[in-house]
């Protein structure tokens, strides 16, 4: 019964989305309030209908209803409840349903909370969200229905891929999708503004909160994915420039650029065309990402739920939506009023430079990700690996980081570079010191690590200096400074936090990549291996029974070279009988910012004939910064979102909607 209810709700949602598009557009054309209201009501109804379908599927998962093909493919009665629920978005059909839930959720949020938008702009935005809803829900209903029944239901399901049965990965898709799809609102606002032919400071102010919300969620989603790859896949890699990773990174870069250019448009009325272009681009990259991940057209390490025929439909949807947006752009943008002027040295100019770097970086990632497709046409198979991205992306971002701390210190319109330099001297000195220390303290000289650590310190300290100067730290009495801390707008604290997070991330990424230490040996119980300053001893190997797996757990004590105990690591090797699949659970020892990372490998014979285990261990220095940095960036985004100046009644109250999307 639940399956039929779900399928019916989904069809209902399709109809509501269609009504949302038609009625809202009619409201704009005729100006009749009744049509506008009806369109907004339809947006809300579409969201409720998708939510009902989503709940129905969740109920089917919780009750293990294997007569539904999708549930039978992705669930199992033995699975813990949290992974039964995570299974809802563990496969192709369900994750598309999650996408639709977020999409209609954002549409309903615009309808409900967009009171401050001009009526015409609002109607067109809701209509555009409706069209997107029709495209994606239509895809879900006709080509990718999660509620199809099996003629002969199996007794037991095939369970979820064990690699996905992990807390970080249970949360990764909801955050990622809330971010991806959140970019649909700036897209729709851009479409609406292009039709209206008016892009001004007010429009940019409406775009900012939605972009901030989407960007923050996307940041959390990508970080969760990187963290999962780091500890679940067992080789300690957090980013591999894999097509699927790049697919999520391109919208992130575009939305980060949009965040900054929208500030220029809001404060100075400049760059309206470019801001609109980025708003269209960000969601187009989201759709491209959805296509790349699902079509399996590129070889990826992280390919789940791949289906080439559905990929073709997704390409169609993407081309239709993005094509319409950019077509409108090409047609309308020459008529836009040009924005304000500014000098080459000014806050505006620094933000333009930031946008140039981010956009070119996104283009470089785009080329590297899609270039293999070009070769495909020539019947050659190639892949483009990390060397390409390290050589192109890293220098571009390095240059962007170099100018970053100056930006917030420059005045609008016309600024004095000398004054800014004087205020950043301390950051420059610390950065140079950090780079030299990095070179001096480590045996294999790694120039790139030194540059990276220096740049990270430069950005982080630069961000802190800017905040310190705003509160006049040490220049005014402490009480006065503290009073100023509370008085500063939250938006500027958000910026400080986000830039600080970026600096910390860069430090961690450069340091960890250059100075990780690895050791591997086959050990019998009692044997030990040396990893840098530590000694790892295999105490015993015990069998453990999990809810739906059996595991061998290696008990390893970590000591210093002089025998002082440090910690215990207990990596596991799990076997999931239903999937006939082996996974490794990494044993982690937290040492401040560093990780001691231990993987238990397979059984191997030692030269003396006894059986041992292959134990592989890594010392990952500063690796925590790689995950804490982006988290700080997302917190900074959320803090800015709560700024009253951003009139964030809209996105603030919209938060529960995205929270539901996560549930």
């Amino acid at each position, binding site marked *: 019964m639940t399956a039929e209810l779900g399928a019916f709700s989904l069809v209902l949602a399709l109809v509501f989305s269609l009504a949302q598009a038609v009625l809202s557009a009619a409201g704009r054309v005729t100006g009749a309030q009744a049509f506008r209201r009806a369109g907004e009501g339809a947006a809300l109804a579409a969201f409720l209908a998708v939510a009902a379908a989503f709940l129905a599927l969740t109920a089917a998962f919780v009750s293990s209803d294997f007569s539904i093909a999708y549930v*039978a493919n992705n669930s199992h009665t033995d699975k813990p409840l949290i992974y039964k629920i995570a299974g809802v978005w563990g496969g192709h059909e369900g994750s598309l349903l999650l996408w639709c839930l977020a999409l209609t959720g954002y549409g309903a949020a615009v309808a409900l909370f967009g009171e401050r938008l001009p009526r015409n702009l609002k109607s067109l935005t809701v209509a555009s969200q409706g069209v997107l809803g029709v495209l994606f829900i239509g895809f879900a209903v006709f080509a990718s229905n999660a509620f199809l029944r099996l003629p002969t239901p199996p007794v037991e399901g095939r369970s979820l891929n064990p690699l996905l049965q992990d807390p970080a990965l249970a949360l990764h898709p909801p955050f990622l999708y809330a971010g991806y799809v959140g970019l649909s609102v700036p897209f729709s606002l851009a479409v609406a503004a292009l039709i209206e032919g008016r892009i001004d400071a007010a429009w940019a102010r409406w775009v900012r909160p939605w972009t901030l919300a989407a960007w923050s969620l996307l940041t959390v989603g990508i970080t969760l994915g990187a963290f999962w790859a780091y500890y679940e896949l067992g*080789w300690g890699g957090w980013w591999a420039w894999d097509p699927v990773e790049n697919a999520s990174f391109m919208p992130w870069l575009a939305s980060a650029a949009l965040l900054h250019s929208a500030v220029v448009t809001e404060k100075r009325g400049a760059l309206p065309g470019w801001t609109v272009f980025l708003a269209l681009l960000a969601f187009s990259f989201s759709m491209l990402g959805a296509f790349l991940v699902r079509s399996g057209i590129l070889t990826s390490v992280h390919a789940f739920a791949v289906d*080439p025929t559905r990929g073709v439909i997704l390409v169609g949807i993407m081309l239709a939506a993005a094509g319409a947006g950019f077509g409108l752009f090409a047609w309308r943008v020459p008529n836009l009023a040009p924005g304000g002027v500014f000098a080459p040295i000014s806050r505006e100019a620094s933000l333009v430079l930031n946008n140039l770097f981010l956009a070119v970086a996104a283009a470089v990632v785009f080329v590297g990700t899609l*270039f293999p497709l070009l070769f495909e046409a020539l019947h050659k198979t190639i892949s483009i*690996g990390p060397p390409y991205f390290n050589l*192109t992306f890293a220098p571009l971002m390095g240059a962007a980081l170099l100018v970053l701390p100056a930006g917030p210190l420059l005045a609008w319109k016309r600024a004095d570079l000398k004054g800014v330099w004087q205020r950043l001297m301390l950051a420059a000195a610390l950065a140079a010191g950090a780079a030299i220390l990095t070179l001096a303290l480590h045996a294999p000289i790694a120039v790139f690590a030194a540059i990276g650590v220096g740049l990270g310190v430069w950005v982080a300290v630069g961000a802190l200096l800017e905040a310190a100067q705003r509160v006049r730290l040490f220049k005014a009495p402490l009480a006065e400074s503290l009073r100023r801390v509370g008085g500063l707008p939250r938006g500027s604290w958000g910026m400080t936090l986000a830039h600080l997070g970026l600096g910390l991330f860069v430090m961690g990424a450069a340091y960890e990549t250059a100075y990780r230490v690895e050791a591997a*040996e086959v050990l019998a119980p009692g044997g030990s291996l040396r990893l840098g300053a530590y000694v790892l001893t295999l105490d015993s190997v015990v069998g453990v029974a999990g809810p739906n797996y059996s595991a061998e757990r290696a008990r390893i004590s970590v000591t210093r070279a002089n025998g002082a105990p440090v910690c215990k690591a207990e990596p596991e090797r799990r076997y999931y009988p239903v999937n006939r699949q082996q996974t490794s659970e990494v044993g982690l020892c937290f040492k401040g910012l560093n990780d001691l990372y231990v993987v238990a490998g397979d059984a191997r014979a030692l030269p003396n004939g006894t059986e041992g285990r292959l134990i592989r261990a890594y010392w990952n220095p500063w690796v925590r910064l790689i995950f804490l940095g982006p988290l700080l960036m997302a917190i900074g985004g959320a803090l800015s979102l709560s700024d009253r100046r951003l009139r964030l009644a809209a996105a603030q109250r919209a938060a529960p909607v995205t929270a539901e999307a996560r549930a």
Partner: protein
Amino acid sequence: MAWLPKSRKARRRLTIIAAAAPILAAAVGLSLYAMGDGVVFFYGPSEAHSKAPIGRVVRIGGLVEAGSVARAADGSVSFKVTDRQVAIPVTYRGDLPDLFREGQGVVTQGAFDNAGVFRASQVLAKHDERYMPPEVARALKARGEWKRGEGQGADQAQTPRPAA
């Protein structure tokens, strides 16, 4: 400066172009340069020896030959990648992905040594047993070794079978 355009708008445009041009040029130059090193060609086992020079980093893909996997005490492992006509010996130091299995599709990246052994620096992990890397499927199809439902067909996701 007399050669500059008179209107402020045009001047600003010129400034932006002057700033953008070197960045774009640098990006294009870097990309072209990096493509030389960053591009890794893929070959099936039959064409690998003739097309991949010794020492050049390439990817080879095929099936892991049944019974060919040998794990040594020093942590290294050797196996053969085959398209059922030619089998390439591969050695690898490191953890094999959890889904590495005899008879399953695999992609490895590395280079041939002088003895004709492929020294892999990377064995690509696939998260999903139903998933077959497209280039492996293509290489096997080209050899006529592709059979649907061999445990790798993506189509199985749509026509579910009862659990074993």
